[in-house]
């Protein structure tokens, strides 16, 4: 089990807010910390892990947790 440092709840938000918010959030976090992102918007659920990887962060998991609900865990580089 990983220790989640912080949670970013983006449920109910439309693009591009989840993407932009998660990008801003990881900038403020320290190396090694883990961010949990909750989204219910399909496009963002697919794109946030891609964006994070291209930024060099580690995507620990990206799971569909229910109907149109996803949980993404990111470890900051």
């Amino acid at each position: 089990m990983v220790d989640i440092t912080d949670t970013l709840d983006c449920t109910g938000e439309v693009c591009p807010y989840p993407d932009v918010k998660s990008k801003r959030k990881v900038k403020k976090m320290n190396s090694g910390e883990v961010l949990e992102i909750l989204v219910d918007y399909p496009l963002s659920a697919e794109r946030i892990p891609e964006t994070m990887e291209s930024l060099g962060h580690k995507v620990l998991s990206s799971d569909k947790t229910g109907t149109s609900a996803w949980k993404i865990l990111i470890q900051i580089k």
Partner: protein
Amino acid sequence: MVGLLIGAIFGFILQRGRFCMNSAFRDIILLKEYKLAKAVLVSLAVLMVGFAIFVFGDVIDLAPKPFKPWSAIVGGLVFGIGMVLAAGCASGTTYRVGEGMMGSFVAAIGLTTGAMMTGAGILSVAKLDLQHVVIGDKTPTGNALLMLIVGLVGIVLMFIFWGLPAIKKKREANEPMIKTENFVDSTFKKAYPWWVTGILIGIVLTAGYVASNGVVGITGGWMDIDTWLLTKNSVMWAGFIIFGIIIGAFAGAYLAGEFKFRVPKDGFTVVKQFIGGGLMGFGAVTAMGCNITNILGGVPQLSLHSIITGVCIVFGSWIAAYLLFMWRKD
């Protein structure tokens, strides 16, 4: 009925491909993400070839719009700013209604309101002023041969620059070219890769043009529904496209387990989406077409008006994205 069917297929593809021009253009500068923009280019090339084939077959007539510079520039910029605020272009907003996003439904009402006001209401004076100046031919004719050439050259270039590197990468990684074993899964459950979306959108919109001998539009469809609600005049082709898109997007979202009623947490977002929708409505009627009519209907016909409108929509979205998301770096 054909409208309903084509709309439904269109909606299904929009939902699966997450095809939204708002994201496509905005994310070029916001997230440095080009996949959807590439999908737009692919569908443009397919549309050019598709339209040209049916022109040669004498099935459809081209009807590029006359070049009205002010209407294209102002309408395009306002539309572009509006779609970022509304969090979805005309088609993106419509398919998200089918996904159960209430914010987008509000944006669609805003779009209809803005479009109606500009079409016949208090904003129609501004529209007429902007549409007054016409440059060049008032009833231009398309050049199908040129369209065919541009489309084919586009397809070849895209294949060389985007297709071949991707194939090479796959070969090096020893991945199969096409994964056939889970066809049902990839058709109904997963999001489509950008090039599949682009090709499918191109084909379905070509079919839409052939079926109606005219471009498929979104804004006109919403206005059509509004007229129907107010006057009980029967819904026309354009209105059926909208119902079709919503049904198709719902089917796509439902099958993939992505349908849920969602309301933005923040009330202000809803207000923004309504205003954004209204701006899009004004822009679309002023520029004689929303993003689908102009970019995916007019640009393939090489209409100067549509090309200028398209460029201004892109700039408008960049301006809005910059002001909303990039200007204040916190």
